[in-house]
């Protein structure tokens, strides 16, 4: 049976009707057309589905949409402003921190959640923060460098 929920996504308020079994990831895809968050492992650990929920990077595949009622979600689609890359997106491009791009939305959002709370992370803190975002292509080095470069620019 569908339940009405209200939630903010990328700054905009949405009213949805969802069944309790609807995952946040599914609501983003099917109810809101936001496909940036990816379905990766079906096992709750790869991070391809990462979104920011009330300031925390979480696996949207392991959150019920009904549990997101009244909360704020940020997806990768909410990063760029007026056609301009978010500094993290620009840094990822500059540092070659993506190849196939599948992990990238999750990486960007995890990085944003980190820098919002900890603007000057150490390399170890960056590596720990992205330890829940698996990347098959890059070997992580350029991703870490891109994130640190944004942190350095802000300081």
């Amino acid at each position, binding site marked *: *049976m569908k*339940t009405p929920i209200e939630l903010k996504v990328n700054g905009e308020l949405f009213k949805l009707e969802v*069944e*309790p*079994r609807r*995952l946040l990831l599914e609501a983003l895809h099917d109810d809101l057309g936001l496909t940036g968050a990816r379905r990766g492992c*079906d*096992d*709750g*650990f790869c*991070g391809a589905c*990462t979104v920011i929920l009330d300031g*925390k*990077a*979480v*696996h949207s*595949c*392991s*959150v*019920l949409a*009904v*549990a997101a009622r009244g909360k704020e979600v940020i997806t990768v689609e909410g990063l760029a402003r007026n056609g301009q890359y978010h500094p993290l997106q620009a840094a990822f491009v500059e540092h070659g921190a993506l190849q196939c791009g599948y992990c990238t939305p999750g990486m960007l959002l*995890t990085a944003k959640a980190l820098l919002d709370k900890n603007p000057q992370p150490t390399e170890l803190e960056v590596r*720990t*923060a992205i*330890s*829940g*975002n*698996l990347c098959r292509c890059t070997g992580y080095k350029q991703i870490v460098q891109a994130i640190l470069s944004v942190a350095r620019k802000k300081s």
Partner: protein
Amino acid sequence: MRDFEYLEPRTIKEAVQLLQQYRDEAKVLAGGQSLLVMMRQGLIDPSHVVSLEHIEVLRGIHRDGQRTIIGAMTTHDEVSRSPLVAARGAPLAQAAGKVGSPHVRNLGTLGGNLCHAEVGADPPPALIALGAQVRIAGPNGERVLEVEQLFKGFLETVVQSDEVLTRVEIPDPPEGAVGVYLKHTLRSVDRALVGAACLLQLGSDHLCRDVRLGLGGVAATPLRARKAEAALRGQRLTAALAEAAGEVAMGEVSPISDAHGSADYRRKMVKVFVKRALTEAAAQAGYRL
């Protein structure tokens, strides 16, 4: 998943009533980092899900006399950052900081982790080493158990279908006690191949006055390595003794072989990590083994 009814009780009493009403048809939802994964995989399909999200009294960490109380809905992230837990339950702070990934730790809860009882979960051996207890609420009142008594078998606890684990209670370690939790895993997001926790009390001349060893990932349930402890108690702690204790611990475990490692490998790693845990704990007390 099949559709289910989503229930949001506001109190523990209400939650217990709902669980009594729906019994084996219902599952308790804490952080969802284990339950929802299993539901998506079709391993379980409850017709009713009782979410503990709105029961505020289940959250938070506070002191009560000479104990640290952790609400069951406290997240691993909160536990790992808590100054109270760092001060009086360091092995748990370390264990909580190693569960899954930061994403999992942001939502996953200590109570949920304990009730899920996964092999290789990080908090249980740390709590066993700390001599912690859990409080469980049911229709007939509350009961308190040692953490070790909570686990019955593979993914099985003694928590009944009409009960809710409400909090974890950690008695203050003795003055001067030191402890660690070490996790052996190939990828940080995985469960522990071996999780080794110790709480160690050293007297003068490196004498091991008391010790508690918790092991996870190496049997169907987390366990206390009592024989290894007995080999240490009352003896001068040296590198050789730590190794010998590790050897004894190997005989107390029954690991399985799976894609992450063979039983033989896991057993050998028990020895390595028991020795390492004792060594690192002793180092905290200023003793280099």
